[in-house]
């Protein structure tokens, strides 16, 4: 499925200063029953975000009118647990294009890169700085520059570099996915099969 090409994303951010957020929290299993990729954003963080009767839970960052933006900032080991790509679909569908944390679970990171959600890794110290900046001013702006692999706190100009493979960077910049690449490599795959 096509996704938005990424170049520079400038936005305020939503803070989620909790560690080890697993994909069951991002989207609980009972909302995985769709057979199309539609509407997952409505159930993003469902049980943290809503009461049982469907009213928004006070205090949860997504319900806090002070916070908005395309960037989610989360505690370390974000996206652990289940391999469900639905977790990324929910984040993406809700409107996030970048996640910032000091550490991600492997499958989450792979899934995110595959569907156009950029996982930015910063140091624990820089992450704390980002949380503090949002706490002081929820409208504070951040710039995510994919080309230069740089995440910047615009108010102070402090920035952190981040890693991404040259291949994935190329994909995200151009909105390409691995399936196109693999399908175009079919002849090589057939040769590999023959020579095994």
């Amino acid at each position: 499925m096509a996704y938005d090409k990424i170049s520079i994303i400038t936005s305020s951010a939503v803070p989620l200063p909790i560690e080890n957020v697993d994909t069951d929290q991002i989207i609980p299993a009972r909302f995985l029953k769709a057979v199309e990729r539609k509407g997952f954003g409505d159930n993003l963080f469902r049980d943290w975000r809503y009461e049982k009767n469907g009213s928004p839970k006070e205090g949860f960052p997504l319900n806090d009118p002070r916070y908005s933006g395309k960037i989610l900032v989360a505690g370390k080991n974000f996206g652990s647990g289940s391999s469900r790509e639905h977790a990324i679909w929910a984040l993406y569908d809700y409107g996030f294009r970048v996640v910032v944390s000091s550490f991600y679970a492997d499958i989450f990171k792979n899934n995110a890169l595959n569907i156009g959600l950029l996982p930015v890794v910063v140091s624990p110290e820089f992450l704390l700085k980002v949380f503090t900046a949002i706490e002081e001013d929820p409208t504070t702006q951040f710039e995510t520059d994919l080309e230069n692999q740089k995440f910047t706190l615009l108010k102070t100009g402090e920035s952190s570099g981040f890693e991404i493979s040259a291949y994935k960077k190329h994909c995200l910049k151009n909105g390409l996915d691995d399936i196109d690449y693999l399908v175009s490599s079919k002849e090589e795959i057939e040769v590999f099969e023959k020579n095994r």
Partner: protein
Amino acid sequence: MESKTLFDKIWDAHTVKQIEGGPSVLYIDRHLIHEVTSPVAFLGLKNRGLKVFRPELTTATPDHNVPTENQHLTIIDELSRHQVDMLKKNCKEHGIVYHDLQSDGHGIVHIIGPELGLTQPGMTIVCGDSHTSTHGAFGAIAFGIGTSEVEMVLASQCIMQPKPKKMRISVNGKLKKGVTAKDIALYIISQISTSGGTGHFIEYAGSAITSLSMEGRMTLCNLSIESGARGGMVAPDETTYNYIKGRQFAPAGEQWEKALNGWKQLKTEEGAVFDKEYTFDAADIEPMITYGTNPGMGIGITQSIPLANGMEGSDKNTYLKSLQYMGYSEGEPMIGKPVDYVFVGSCTNGRIEDFRTFASFIQGRKKAPNVTAWLVPGSKHVEKQIRAEGLDKVLEAAGFQLRQPGCSACLAMNDDKIPEGKYAVSTSNRNFEGRQGPGARTMLASPLTAAAAAVTGVITDPRDLLAS
């Protein structure tokens, strides 16, 4: 030449090509699919006008959504039924073998792969499910993938993966009485944390590992993902070969001999280097139980819940939030805590050995009246074997009933949900908030510890009730 690890040998043999500054294109020998993570992948193929490239290398079964009672009836939940129907339809359309509910080959995808002999040493195996790591027990590279990757495999039988780092975890010595593979796994995760394995693929080694049965090795490898690792593996040996021989899709005759010769090469060579190594002593492990909301929050059953002293900032907040969810306090002992539900099953502990362990413990005892117990075989094959061995009679005599195969209460996607606020001792793999139902509180443990809780109605050290 540089010495190779078991992981390197299999990875290298499956690398179609290495993209410069990017991932490897990895060829996949076995692809397992279920109803939850495949429909959008099939839809993607359709939208691109593609067919399944190698349908004979994919095997399907519905497991996450299925009810574990009355499987002969139509699935009541409309969305679940639709998802299962879609899987069936997609398989038919693309010529993929589909093991339907109630058929001999039905069950949790990670239980039927090994049972059918589809899982073999030296293979690459993927599935849109993180517990695919289970198959590593056979000396295979097996790991969970997302739906985009499911689509990649369907479209090209390949996947794009950065090569993970290598970790070896050795557990040496003899396990103490009452200590099982589940306890080894929960112990390791409690020591290295839920992110200690991230970025790595684990090879388990040492005498405590090689003395495990295949069922035990599967339980251990299954839980590799809970340490953050992509997967875990155990080098194949006689135990492995004996398990595979004669199974439906196992090589036979001349092919068997040929395969066996190849499998015998699948060992980490002397001098091969791992990026990280851990060594544990089997004698340090006691029956484990979790007290918090991730699988790393586990302790020996006789221990008390750790204090938050020394933690600070978001570490401390996260810890206290977790205890609050569980309704527990720092420093409390786990022994004697109330239990409302006991769940035995899942891809972690839903195999025949698990039911033998449970049945032999409860034999001559009675289910505690305050406990609701769900005993869910991992597959039709396990269910049949339970009956063939007469274990169902033992269970019934003690007040337990056997349900039908499926993922059941492991993930609250079907009808088997633990009610809000209730405490469940569960042989499954995740104690996340709401994992077994909104507001449900999960304590992960072995089938033996689950059996002790089921007959006493509280958290109990199974060793106290084991015949000496």
